[in-house]
């Protein structure tokens, strides 16, 4: 029998592609239940009525895939709540209609390109997370150029960076360079290093500041307890 714990674990693998965080830690899972017979039902909520429907669709579709893949789950319902396009998205995902089929006439393509663009941003942001402590300790940023993944101490941030790189088909093995171009996977050159690190930092700030606003809006909308001024940072 599938348990609620398993359901939550499955939902934990679903990320907001824009914020690069699990929907569970963002507070987007309003409820989730699974019956003895294996009927799973998950309610999702977002920070605003007008949150971008493309990202909303991806989260609902990914949640559907993650939950329905659980052994013992026979039926899956993912219900996005309080969103202007909730009916279209819920119905489209349940019918396996794809994004273009869900928004017939309003969208021409699927969302792979969008997802990939945001994964590349996540790689850049993750680069800053991993490099910042190194930069604080290193006298010369150029020393980073010679490092491979294996040279770094293990950390959750490093795992995450490697996972995002692997998802994009970029070098992610132990012998891969720490610094790569998120588009091509080529090692970063000495000339490109300062701009690369600066871009990585700006991208990280952008994603994290956005996450801060989204959390604040969700809190306003659902009158949630404020966990702390700078949670999630």
């Amino acid at each position, binding site marked *: 029998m599938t348990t609620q714990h398993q359901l939550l674990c499955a939902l934990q693998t679903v990320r907001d592609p*824009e914020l690069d965080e699990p929907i569970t830690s963002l507070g987007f899972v309003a409820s989730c239940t699974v019956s003895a017979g294996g009927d799973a039902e998950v309610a999702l909520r977002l*920070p*605003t*009525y*007008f949150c*971008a*429907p*493309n990202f909303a669709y991806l989260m609902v579709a990914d949640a559907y895939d993650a939950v329905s893949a659980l052994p013992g789950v026979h039926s899956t319902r993912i219900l996005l709540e309080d969103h*202007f396009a909730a009916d279209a998205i819920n119905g489209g995902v349940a019918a396996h209609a794809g*994004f*273009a089929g869900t*928004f017939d006439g*309003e*969208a*021409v*393509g*699927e*969302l792979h390109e*969008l997802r990939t*663009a945001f994964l590349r*941003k996540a790689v850049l942001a993750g680069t800053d997370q991993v490099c910042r402590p190194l930069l*604080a300790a290193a006298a010369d940023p150029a020393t980073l150029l010679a490092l491979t993944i294996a040279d770094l101490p293990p950390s959750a941030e490093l795992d995450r960076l490697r996972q995002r790189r692997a998802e994009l088909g970029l070098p992610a093995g132990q012998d891969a360079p720490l610094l790569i171009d998120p588009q091509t996977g080529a090692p970063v050159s000495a000339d490109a290093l300062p701009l690369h690190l*600066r*871009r990585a*930092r*700006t*991208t990280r*700030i*952008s*994603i*994290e*500041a*956005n996450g*801060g*606003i989204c959390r*604040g*809006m969700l809190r*306003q*909308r659902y009158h949630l307890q404020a966990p702390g*001024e*700078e949670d999630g*940072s």
Partner: protein
Amino acid sequence: MYEHDGEKYFVVDGHTHYWNAAPDNWVPGAEQFAKGWIECFHAYMGLGPPETHWPLDKFQKYSEDDLMHDLFDAGHVDVALLQSTYLLEWYKEGFNTTQRNASMAERHPGKFLVNTRWDPRDGDEGLKTLKANVARYGSKGCKLYTAEWNAGSRGWKLTDPAAYRFLDACQELGVKNIHVHKGPTIWPLDKDAFDVSDVDHAATDFPGLNFIVEHVGLPRIEDFCFMATQEPNVYAGLAVVLGGLMHARPRFFAKVMGELLFWVGEDKMLFGSDYAIWEPQWQVEGLAAWQMPDTEEFSDYPRLSTAGKKKIFGLNAARLYDIEVPAEYRLAEPVAGA
């Protein structure tokens, strides 16, 4: 004007609205969008200090007296730019049209500059209206929503050939300040609605125009920064950065300001309260008193000097809009040489 620590600031609020989003203005059949829109705005207000929050019914439709008080009596604002937002698919008389803004502004000479708008999908009729609005209201700027609905079409780009006709017209008419909404939005559905690459191209092709990217492309600050740093005529509109982060997320506020100061620079950043989402008073007072934190985390960001604050509060916008600034509020040296 605002005085803090013996320094005098001339304040141009680059982003204000005078809207009617009450139920009497909702289009039948589109009520859920009209309601959802204003409630979404109202939640943004919640990111400001609690004592500045309004009840929803006041927020839907505030009075002219409220606005005059909040901007000019309490809010330290000298001149306010009224930005228009039409949303005629959802609001019968529009959300806040050029006409609504202008009829109010006419009763308060010298306080407002009325910006107009255009939509390339309106074609020749739209060009006529633009010319008429400029002749009647003297608009030197316009506000563009590239993601706005229009007769079944859910968005456009500044690089569309139809848009270039309007940009040509703006150049001829002296509408030299193009405010582009690149911030929280919905459409187009299948692309990234915050994409700023169209501004990049238009700014290169129309060097005589200034492009003010409102809300700095939030949540894609990085894309905006990388673009703005290469285009001398692209500016950062700080509405939402201040209102949405300064109180609710002070550390992120400092980091975002640091990024903007680094990439865009204090000569190209413009204050805007986004009234009535947030009142200007706490934002003016907060920014005047604000300093980049002194800890290691912020050590490689540029500092914001008093002169920089003066530019952001009003001198930059005054330059773009040819607003006469009294001598006591100017910098000792010309802004361009600073």
